[in-house]
């Protein structure tokens, strides 16, 4: 047996993009592989749950877990990994703040199943078949993980030691984090392993930001194209730069896409969406309530815009679906 530190990668409710980032380390991954012993990586290597169960507690040096927690199976896995690992790193937006999957918290299991298996135009389900936790087939009982009503962030499920933000986290930050762990040069527990600056601070378009931003109409990238060389907010496109942590390399902005907030908030901010809303609403160029209303109505979907990557990790965590349905 080697004495190299053991490392695990696991995925929960995610798209697989975080796994891509690990692969995108390219040649550097060979250095990682040379320095550590990978004991779990479902996307690339065949390990079973019993392999992890056979390890002693704390035997894994660090587990990188991406994805939000949506299924009972994911909860079981992350709890097992917590038990077996010295460090847990929430890897990517979904593990960090819920990410895109947590937009599902605007609905609940029943509404999601109805939509997905019945009312979506491409569904043909006259037998009304829905996923269930246990089914009998030819006398054999088959199990499926249960689907929770709400999506949770990783730290709403287990204790998390560090966070690597981003959708997905850029390879530069992943490399730095791995190096810091191997060299034992980690910051205080609970830290987000990215700079504590706002996106605007490092934005390449910052110089084009006027002294005073003023918006009279909100535009959408879906219906018009921004000028790639001018601050998006100055053009009236909602950019979450003011309320989002830097460190991503401004990949979206360089691709002519206003910041969508995947890096989450800076340290000490309780709710990224609320901060973004506050910043955006304050620069509306009107002092007349009626005109302000008109301008605000050009924002189609405030929840989806301001909480695109952080709904599960926000103060309210999701919409009150069941109650309003009953009440209405």
């Amino acid at each position, binding site marked *: 047996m080697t004495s190299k530190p053991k490392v695990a990668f696991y995925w929960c409710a995610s798209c697989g993009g975080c796994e891509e980032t690990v692969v995108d380390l390219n040649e550097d991954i060979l250095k990682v592989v040379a320095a550590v012993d990978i004991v779990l990586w479902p996307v690339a290597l065949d390990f079973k749950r019993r392999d992890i169960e056979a390890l002693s507690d704390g035997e894994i040096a660090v587990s990188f877990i991406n994805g939000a927690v949506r299924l009972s199976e994911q909860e079981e896995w992350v709890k097992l990994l917590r038990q077996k690992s010295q460090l847990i790193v929430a890897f990517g937006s979904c593990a960090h703040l819920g990410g895109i999957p947590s937009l599902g918290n605007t609905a609940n299991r029943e509404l999601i199943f109805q939509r997905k298996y019945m009312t979506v135009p491409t569904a043909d389900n006259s037998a009304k078949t829905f996923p269930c936790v246990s089914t009998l087939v030819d006398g054999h009982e088959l199990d499926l993980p249960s689907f929770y009503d709400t999506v949770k962030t990783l730290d709403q499920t287990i204790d998390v030691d560090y966070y690597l933000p981003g959708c997905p986290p850029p390879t530069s930050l992943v490399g730095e984090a791995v190096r810091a762990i191997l060299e034992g040069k980690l910051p205080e527990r609970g830290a987000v392993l990215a700079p504590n600056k706002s996106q605007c601070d490092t934005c390449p378009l910052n110089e084009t930001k006027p002294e005073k931003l003023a918006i009279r109409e909100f535009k959408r990238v879906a219906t018009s194209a921004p000028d790639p060389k001018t601050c998006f907010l100055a053009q009236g496109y909602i950019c979450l730069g003011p309320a989002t942590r830097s460190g991503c390399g401004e990949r979206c902005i360089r691709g002519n896409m206003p910041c969508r907030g995947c890096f989450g908030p800076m340290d000490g901010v309780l709710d990224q969406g609320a901060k973004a809303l506050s910043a955006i*609403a304050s620069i509306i160029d009107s002092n007349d309530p009626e005109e302000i209303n008109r301008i605000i109505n050009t924002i189609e979907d405030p929840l989806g815009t301001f909480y695109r990557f952080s709904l599960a990790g926000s103060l309210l965590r999701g919409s009150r679906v069941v109650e309003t349905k009953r009440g209405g």
Partner: protein
Amino acid sequence: MDAKSFEPKIIGFLCRWCSYPGADLAGTSRLKYPPNVVPIRVMCSGRVDPSFVMKALADGADGVLIAGCHPPADCHYQSGNIKAMRRYPLLIKLLEQFGIEKERVRLEWISASESGKFAQVIREMTETIRSLGPLNWPTRR
């Protein structure tokens, strides 16, 4: 909890220059209004971050009042109340997407002399929220 025994909990963010003295005057003038509001003095209605409102609602409040100096020109900091005025309708639109009725969060302009208006706003809010029922936000989902 039935409608009769339900006492709404309202958090009132009152600005230090107008609305808090207005509430103070309601007290020294011995105006009667329901004891359902917990006043929190802030320096300016523009200081009331939307996350304050959300935290109040998530942590058990049934309603939130934001009160500040009359626009356009009463604000001690010149434009803090204008910032509150711009944020409020967007916050309401967002809260409705969260399934929170817009009547639960109210923005009012109350000057230091308008003790009667303060008492009236608290009376109205208490009754409106009483009829809506408890919010009971599920903090542990």
